[in-house]
């Protein structure tokens, strides 16, 4: 993952009272955070609110940020902890399949009403949903490493630092997660040939 060099400068500016530095930090990472939450939670409904809550916590804790750490890793941990709390709170696991079904169905209905002839687009959306569904079927630890590797493009060392695990554990988890996803997505791969 490419870390902008001036993240720490932004934090320094914020600590010196420049609120615009925080705004810049938000603009830099908001999309990544939102998508991590989206793929972690598996539902669009709470993404805006949770992303907002992540940055509120970031704002509140910026004065305590330790300079040795990576800014995004720190933000990511805040996001993950928030998602875990949210999943626990809503006991989302029990109703996950139903939520997905409804979410997906409603989205398809909206799309079919808006663009009745957009078959290609609908197909594309369905493929994305297949991937999102498969990610949801992974264990949380496997999902985490996959998102950090494939979406955030972090190196194994960066993932290890972010998750506070060994590089060996990262290698192993990525390998297992991929293996699991390949099994879950057999049909998907056939269609994409």
């Amino acid at each position: 993952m490419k870390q902008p060099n001036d993240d720490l400068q932004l934090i320094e500016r914020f600590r010196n009272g420049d609120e615009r530095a925080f705004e810049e930090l938000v603009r830099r990472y908001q999309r990544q955070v939102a998508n991590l939450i989206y793929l972690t939670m598996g539902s669009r409904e709470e993404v805006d609110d949770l992303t907002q809550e992540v940055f509120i916590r970031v704002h509140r804790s910026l004065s305590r940020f330790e300079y040795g750490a990576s800014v995004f890793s720190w933000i990511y941990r805040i996001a993950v902890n928030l998602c875990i709390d949210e999943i626990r709170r809503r006991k989302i696991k029990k109703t996950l399949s139903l939520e997905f079904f409804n979410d997906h169905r409603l989205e398809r209905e909206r799309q079919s009403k808006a663009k009745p002839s957009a078959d290609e687009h609908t197909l594309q959306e369905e493929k994305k949903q297949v991937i999102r569904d498969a990610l949801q079927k992974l264990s949380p630890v496997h999902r985490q490493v996959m998102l950090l590797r494939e979406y955030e493009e972090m190196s194994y060392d960066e993932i290890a630092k972010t998750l506070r695990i060994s590089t060996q554990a990262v290698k192993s988890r990525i390998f297992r997660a991929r293996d699991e996803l390949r099994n879950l997505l057999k049909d998907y791969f056939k269609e994409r040939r």
Partner: protein
Amino acid sequence: MNPQHDVELLSRYVDGEVSTAEQKKMERHLAECGICREHLEQLSTLRDGIREAADYELPSTFTSNLLRTIRLRESVLEERAGAERFAWRVVLALSVLVVVVVGYANLSQPEPLVTVDRVLAAEAPDSLTRRVIEPRHEISKDDIVFAAISK
């Protein structure tokens, strides 16, 4: 694991997490092995799929809404802190007032008048009684007995 299809190495290869020797080994193997080429293709497809699936777009007003919410929360917290400070000051002032009033009341209370009646009522002569009475006159045991009988 089948050494001919080293899928663990392939997983690291696709991430660029291999040594130069491992990279060469894998490239030689891929040149010959259709199964591993297909596996590699699937890993790339998976990566593209995950990136495409991350298509969530926040509303354009997200940042401004966030900043407004932060300011609002801060002002609420500030107000609450101000109210708490005020409440503590009131409590402190009231406590001081109570201490002053009670202290003043104690100090300004007239010294209890201890008379012979109190002794005659068979009240035990405490140190205060003694302090007040004794300078006036000595009370003998007979006085106390007399007082008890008269009562």
